[in-house]
């Protein structure tokens, strides 16, 4: 009993510190993990063999390396300038196109990486058009979370859910979440269009300045660009085939990254690329998995799962709707990564308690509910998802910050509508 209370106490205190975001979240989660070990709640061997989800970590590192190398070729800048020129500098059309680009990029690369690529380009394009970048940044954040919902690699919650469930393949995510993500994206873009269309104006002179840009000059290394795009393309094809090949998505990502490092970079560049991996995110995940492992070890997750089944009387339809809305609301108020890390073992325990396999169709509905709630709920507030926090801090650093309320006014209604649509989708398709 004492160990259980201690584990819950450590978890809640660390969770609270993470939510406040006053300290580096990786350091806090690793501190919490260390305390769990020092207190004897979980042992190191269990952490490394059972609780740390290495597939999540390897997939993130592999994709970070692939995208970092591709970015150095200037191909993403080329694409963004080309997109801006294709709408002839029309500010609202530009907002829709950049949001669309972000959504597609998020589905194919992952949304955290995509916003890191698109934000500097957005600053550059909006500066030349002399238009406020904030509506663009907010729209891109929202689009990144919706686009990321569509695939296994699109959003950290999906990466975690996919990694914890081998039967949920890249194609499963695409088939089950892709259509609803596309519908929600269209509705979101229509909403953003009506919200911002009268607020954005650009002079003809500034449109001409944009037209004068030469996007081809953005391409800095054509041979590396070709190699990067081929390897990136092969990796995405590999994701769609990973279940047929009986290989984890993380292995595909790592193989792609290794191949590109080998054929594209010299020794010095390889070292530089390794240094650009976002180790803060990686360590944050490792610490978090250990913290949740501590709760699993003392049986807390099992108890909560039993409680959820009790209040739903074992009705999985009701449980699916409950998970969607709880995940949506929770992810809007706290970062969805720690929330999903806690929910994954909880759903596994629910399946065990009902005597069902974690890959049973009924249990899969719970996984889709969790993915939809966590990813779409991330748009509720500025703190809802990693992509939001990253964009907000980058914007603030450049003197173009936006407030919690400014984001909430746009994000909350879109989140609410997204969750209602997701709820209807779950009812029609699965329940």
């Amino acid at each position, binding site marked *: 009993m004492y160990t259980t209370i201690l584990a819950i106490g450590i978890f809640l205190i660390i969770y609270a510190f993470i939510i406040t975001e006053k300290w580096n979240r990786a350091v806090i989660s690793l501190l919490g993990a260390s305390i769990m070990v020092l207190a004897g709640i979980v042992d190191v061997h269990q952490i490394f063999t059972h609780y740390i989800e290495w597939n999540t970590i390897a997939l993130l590192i592999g994709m970070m390396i692939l995208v970092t190398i591709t970015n150095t070729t200037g191909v993403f800048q080329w694409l963004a300038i080309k997109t801006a020129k294709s709408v002839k500098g029309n500010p609202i059309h530009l907002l829709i196109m950049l949001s669309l680009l972000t959504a597609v990029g998020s589905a194919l690369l992952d949304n955290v990486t995509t916003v890191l690529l698109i*934000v*500097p380009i957005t*600053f*550059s394009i909006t*500066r*030349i058009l*002399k238009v406020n970048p904030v509506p663009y940044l907010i729209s891109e954040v929202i689009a990144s979370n919706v686009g990321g919902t569509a695939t296994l690699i699109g959003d950290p919650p999906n990466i975690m859910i996919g990694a914890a469930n081998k039967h949920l393949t890249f194609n499963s995510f695409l088939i089950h979440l892709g259509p609803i993500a596309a519908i929600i994206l269209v509705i979101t873009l229509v909403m953003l269009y009506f919200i911002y269309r009268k607020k954005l104006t650009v002079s003809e002179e500034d449109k001409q*300045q944009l037209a*004068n*840009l*030469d996007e081809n*000059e*953005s391409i*800095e290394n054509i041979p590396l660009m070709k190699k990067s795009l081929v390897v990136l393309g092969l990796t995405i094809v590999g994701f769609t085939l990973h279940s047929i090949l009986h290989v984890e998505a993380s292995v595909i990502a790592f193989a792609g990254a290794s191949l590109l490092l080998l054929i594209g970079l010299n020794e010095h560049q390889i070292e530089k690329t390794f240094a650009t991996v976002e180790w803060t995110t990686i360590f944050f995940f490792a610490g978090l998995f250990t913290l949740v492992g501590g709760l699993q070890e003392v049986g807390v997750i099992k108890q909560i799962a039993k409680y959820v089944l009790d209040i739903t009387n074992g009705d999985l339809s009701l449980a699916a709707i409950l998970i969607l809305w709880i995940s949506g609301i929770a992810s809007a108020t706290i970062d969805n990564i720690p929330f999903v890390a806690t929910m994954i073992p909880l759903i596994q325990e629910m399946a065990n308690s009902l005597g069902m396999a974690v890959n049973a169709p009924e249990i899969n509905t719970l996984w889709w509910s969790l993915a939809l709630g966590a990813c779409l709920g991330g748009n509720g507030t500025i703190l809802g998802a990693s992509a939001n926090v990253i964009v907000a801090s*980058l914007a603030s*650093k*450049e*003197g*173009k910050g936006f407030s919690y309320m400014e984001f909430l006014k746009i994000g909350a209604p879109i989140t609410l509508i997204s969750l209602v649509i997701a709820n209807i989708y779950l009812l029609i398709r699965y329940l």
Partner: protein
Amino acid sequence: MLNYQFDTNTIHLEESPNNEEIEIQIKLLQPEPYAKYLKQVKDFFDGNDRYTEVLFYYCKNNEYRIIVKPDYYNDLILMLMRHQLLQKVEWKH
């Protein structure tokens, strides 16, 4: 603040205020090797963790636009000097 001079046979450089920032338009009359040098200046500012302090735009016909915040103006001028796009830099008195 700084005064500077450049070789008018190889570079045409024009400076103008742009809202609260400064805009520098550069036309390379002799692209090689100066286009490469200008790229090195861009890489220097791309390498730090700020995105909007110095914005580089590639235009057609070897023309470039640089929009720089006042706080980074001196840094930019010194980098242009370091990469031989300017011939002389001196403190304004």
